[in-house]
C-alpha cells in the first residue's frame, strides 16, 4: 500500500516536470508537411504526363523513385535526420520514411563490414513493414480469392 501511494505520488511529480509537448501543434505540422509531400507527388505525376508523355502508372513509378532517391541522398548527406525530427510523421509515413530508415541503418552499421554490417542490418527498421505487409496481404488476398472466386 505504501509502495503504491509512493508510486502514484512519484507519477504526479514526474508528470509535472515532463517537457511540455504541444500535441495540437505537432499534429498541425505533420498535416502540413505530409500534405506538401502529397502535393509534390501529384505535381510530379502531372508534369511527367504532360512533358515526357508517360502513362499515368509509369509516371507514378517514376515519382516514387524520385522521392526514394531524394530521401536516401538526404539521409546520406545528413540533413534529412534533422527534417525528420522537425516534421516527424509528415516524413515518416510517406515512402520517404521507408527509404530513410533503410539508408540510416545501412550507414550506422557500415563500420562492421560489408556483409555482416550493411548486408544483415539494412532491414533492421524497415523489415517490420515488409514482414507485416506480406503476411497481411497474403491473408487478405487469400480471403478475396476465396470469397470472390478469383474475381
Amino acid at each position, binding site marked *: 500500500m505504501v509502495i503504491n501511494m509512493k508510486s502514484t505520488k512519484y507519477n504526479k511529480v514526474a508528470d509535472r516536470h515532463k517537457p511540455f*509537448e504541444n*500535441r495540437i501543434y*505537432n*499534429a498541425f505540422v*505533420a*498535416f*502540413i*508537411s*505530409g*500534405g*506538401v*509531400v*502529397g*502535393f509534390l*507527388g*501529384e505535381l510530379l505525376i*502531372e508534369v511527367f504526363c504532360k512533358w515526357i508523355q508517360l502513362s499515368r502508372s509509369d509516371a*507514378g*513509378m517514376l*515519382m*516514387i523513385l524520385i*522521392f*526514394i532517391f531524394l530521401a*536516401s541522398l538526404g539521409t*546520406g548527406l*545528413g540533413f534529412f535526420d534533422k527534417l525528420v525530427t522537425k516534421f*516527424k*510523421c*509528415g516524413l*515518416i*509515413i*510517406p*515512402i520517404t520514411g*521507408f*527509404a530513410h530508415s*533503410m*539508408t540510416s541503418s*545501412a*550507414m*550506422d552499421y*557500415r563500420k562492421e563490414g560489408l556483409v555482416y554490417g*550493411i548486408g544483415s542490418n*539494412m532491414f533492421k527498421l*524497415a523489415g*517490420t*513493414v*515488409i514482414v*507485416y*505487409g*506480406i503476411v*497481411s*496481404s*497474403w491473408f*487478405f*488476398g*487469400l*480471403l*478475396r*480469392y476465396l470469397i470472390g472466386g*478469383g474475381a
Partner: protein
Amino acid sequence: MLLFNSFLYCGFVCMIAQIILDNSKLSTGHITSIFVCIGAFLDTFNIYDYIVRIVGGGALLPIISFGHSLVHGAIIRSHANGIIGLLMGMFDMTATGITASIIFAFVFSLIFKPKN
C-alpha cells in the same frame, strides 16, 4: 483538383499517425506496420482503388499504399495462375520501390560516412 485532394489526403494520414504517436506508447515502427495492414485490408474490397481515383498521386505516397499494391499485384496474378499466383505476384507492383531503396541505401552507405 487532384492536387488539392492529394494535399488533404496525404496530410490527413500523416496527422492521424502523429496523433497516435503522441497519445499512445506505440513507436513509429508499430504505426507503419499497422498502416500497412490497414492498406492491405482496404484493397481487399477495392476501396483503395476508389481512393486512388479520387485523390490521385497523393494516395500513392503514404505507406498505406504499400499494402495496397502488395495485394493488388497478388490478385492480378491470381486471375491467370490460380491460388499459386497469390505468391507469384506479391511483389509485382512494389518491386520498383523495394529494389530502388535497397540499391540507393547500399550505394549511399558506401559513399557517405555517418556524422556522429
